[in-house]
């Protein structure tokens, strides 16, 4: 099955493949392939390598440090790097706040913030959800009150991935509490070293620390750090969510996880077990359908169609398919999945790969993969979007 890639696309795929093969550090690849946790340093080392090549923000316009990649090149880059065992390219700066800044920011904001993303020097995180504003994000209540040339921010953000590693956070804050929920929100860039910011860890069900709650207690943020108009933040937030969801169908990662599943099944002599072959074949079919849905939608976007409900389709299936592969991989381990110690995984994170650590990594990933169907607009919200906007129901 051939999607009819152009000669340029095929050449580009070859370039990404050989670059990744030659430059991805073996220890980082080893951790990714075995599902073991990555440290800040692991992410940063790989991203520094990409930054030096100029590929951190490939899809950005050249004037801001990108390569003007087409949508198909972005897809090829993600597929090839993930399949080869590269870490998830952290999207908070490159995919989320960067495009918001170059689309809606002032010249001064572009000059100040874009170079740090392209050079991989500034680590960003995302301040959207709050304890009482999850699916109903527009009801967020973190306040920013104007005081001269500053806002004074009070409140808290939750489920903030990697905030404990981050330098800056982009946050949705309420600047008009009298207005309708969506119309009183502004989009602020906040330096996490500002006085009054506290980051508290949240341990998730696999025993690891990715998530945080970020508290703002009279934090002064210069008004010049507001993106666009006051009270128009919802527009920028939605623009960003579109970018977040398109990324959810991680074909390269799905294929990589299928490779590992086949390997684990092979080790256990399951490759001729009809029960296993049935389940494996279903998952392979899911990935095939997801891949071609992604390609079809990619082609439509390249033809100029605005991405709409497609993003929801990809988020819904991308998260579910990877979740299913992750769980069935642990099932294939059978009794070898029963030893699990997150502290051991953390303690031995830089040790050479071992079968025990690999098995625990598989279990850790199985548990962690419950999150993608919740985050980024839960799958329930995606179904609402499809029902309302694509099907005209309600």
């Amino acid at each position: 099955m051939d999607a009819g890639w152009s000669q340029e696309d095929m050449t580009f795929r070859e370039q990404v493949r050989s670059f990744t093969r030659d430059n991805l550090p073996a220890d980082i690849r080893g951790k990714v392939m075995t599902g073991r946790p990555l440290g800040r340093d692991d992410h940063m080392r790989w991203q520094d390598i990409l930054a030096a090549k100029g590929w951190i923000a490939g899809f950005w316009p050249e004037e801001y440090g990108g390569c003007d990649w087409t949508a198909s090149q972005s897809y090829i880059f993600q597929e090839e790097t993930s399949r080869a065992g590269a870490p998830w390219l952290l999207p908070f700066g490159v995919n989320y706040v960067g495009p918001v800044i170059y689309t809606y920011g002032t010249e001064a904001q572009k000059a100040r913030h874009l170079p740090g993303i392209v050079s991989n020097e500034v680590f960003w995180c995302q301040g959207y959800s709050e304890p009482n504003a999850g699916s109903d994000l527009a009801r967020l209540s973190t306040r920013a009150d104007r005081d001269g040339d500053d806002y004074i921010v009070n409140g808290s953000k939750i489920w903030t991935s990697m905030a404990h590693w981050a330098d800056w956070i982009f946050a949705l804050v309420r600047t008009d509490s009298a207005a309708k929920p969506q119309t009183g929100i502004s989009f602020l860039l906040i330096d996490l070293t500002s006085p009054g910011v506290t980051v508290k860890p949240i341990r998730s069900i696999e025993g690891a620390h990715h998530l945080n709650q970020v508290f703002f207690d009279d934090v002064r943020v210069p008004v010049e750090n507001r993106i666009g108009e006051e009270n128009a933040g919802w527009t920028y937030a939605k623009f960003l969510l579109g970018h977040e969801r398109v990324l959810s169908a991680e074909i390269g990662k799905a294929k990589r996880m299928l490779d590992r599943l086949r390997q684990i099944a092979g080790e256990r002599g399951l490759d001729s077990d009809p029960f296993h072959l049935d389940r494996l074949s279903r998952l392979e079919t899911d990935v095939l359908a997801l891949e071609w849905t992604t390609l079809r939608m990619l082609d439509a976007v390249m033809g100029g169609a605005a991405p709409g409900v497609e993003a929801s389709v990809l988020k819904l299936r991308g998260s579910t398919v990877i979740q299913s592969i992750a769980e069935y991989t642990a099932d294939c381990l059978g009794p070898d999945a029963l030893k699990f110690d997150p502290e051991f995984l953390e303690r031995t994170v830089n040790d050479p790969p071992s079968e025990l650590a690999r098995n625990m990594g598989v279990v850790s990933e199985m548990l962690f993969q419950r999150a993608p169907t919740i985050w980024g607009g839960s799958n329930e919200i995606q179904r609402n979007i499809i029902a309302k906007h694509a099907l005209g129901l309600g």
Partner: protein
Amino acid sequence: MKLTPTEEQTMLADSVARFTADRPGGAVDAATWREIAGLGWLGAGVGEAVGGFGGGREMAIVIEQAGASALAELLIPNYLALAILEEVGPENALIPDIMDGKTLACGLVPEMATAEGVTVDSTARTVSGRFVALQGASEATHFVLVLPDMALALTPGVTGVERQSYRGLDDRTKTDLTLQRVPLAQVEILAEGEIVRAALNRARATRAAAVTAECCGLADALFNDTLAYLKQRRQFGQPIGSFQAVQHRLADMFVAVEEIRSLALASARAAEGEGEDHPALSQAIIGATDRALHVAREAIQLHGGVGMTEDLPMGAGLRRLKLLQLMPGGAEDLRRRIIANSA
């Protein structure tokens, strides 16, 4: 038919539920164990003739009510040991010692071993096998093993017995027990020959009753937590439980819990008296585990972000159920055995 609980059984359920509600989470210490023994719960799985007060049904009630706590997993190996002993050695001194909480025992059946199985070398007079991820085995002083034609009790000090404990998928201590050519001369042979068959059947039915009862207790607790949360959590100006799509998911979870309860009851009935070895026992374990896992996954999803945190019981529930699913003799293993046997 007598499927509704008796007044005594209802009182037993209430009393266990009150006890575990007062001690949420947490490991079970020696004092708690003595208290449980004092309350007589360890006698729930055996009959009056050996000093107990029940059978499969009473045992299942205790396990179900303790199912969402760490207590269930310590009770189960002792119940299993008692069920075997009641069949093959009603006079054995271990019975009162276990019921009084003085001795911690761990009952074993062949399907709890790895795929290589448990083998008796009748020429060399030794027994070998490897059991993994046993619960309540790190401190057990007696292992009671029933095989198709031999039941035996052994202590950890015997030649060729090795055990290794570690942190399990359910975040509690799990133990691998290896028997490497353990001389039969050094173990207590409880019974041999044809009469052991009944004990094996009884033990298998008891294990099915215990696993399904724990699934039932866990799934019921996770369902109730989710139901309460969805009534209270407000988004879009209303409780999220008021959305029909969410209501249907809860309705399906409710139906799943009802079916688990039915499978647990069927297994508990099978564990009463003689016990029976029947393919339906494997199906009950598979069916209850699958349904409980569905409930646990839905509980996390419907809680949203908080469902992913270690502070709430959803993750621990999923981890415990995955352990029950993936252990030897668990749903995944039994499913493969059923398919292999019919091929």
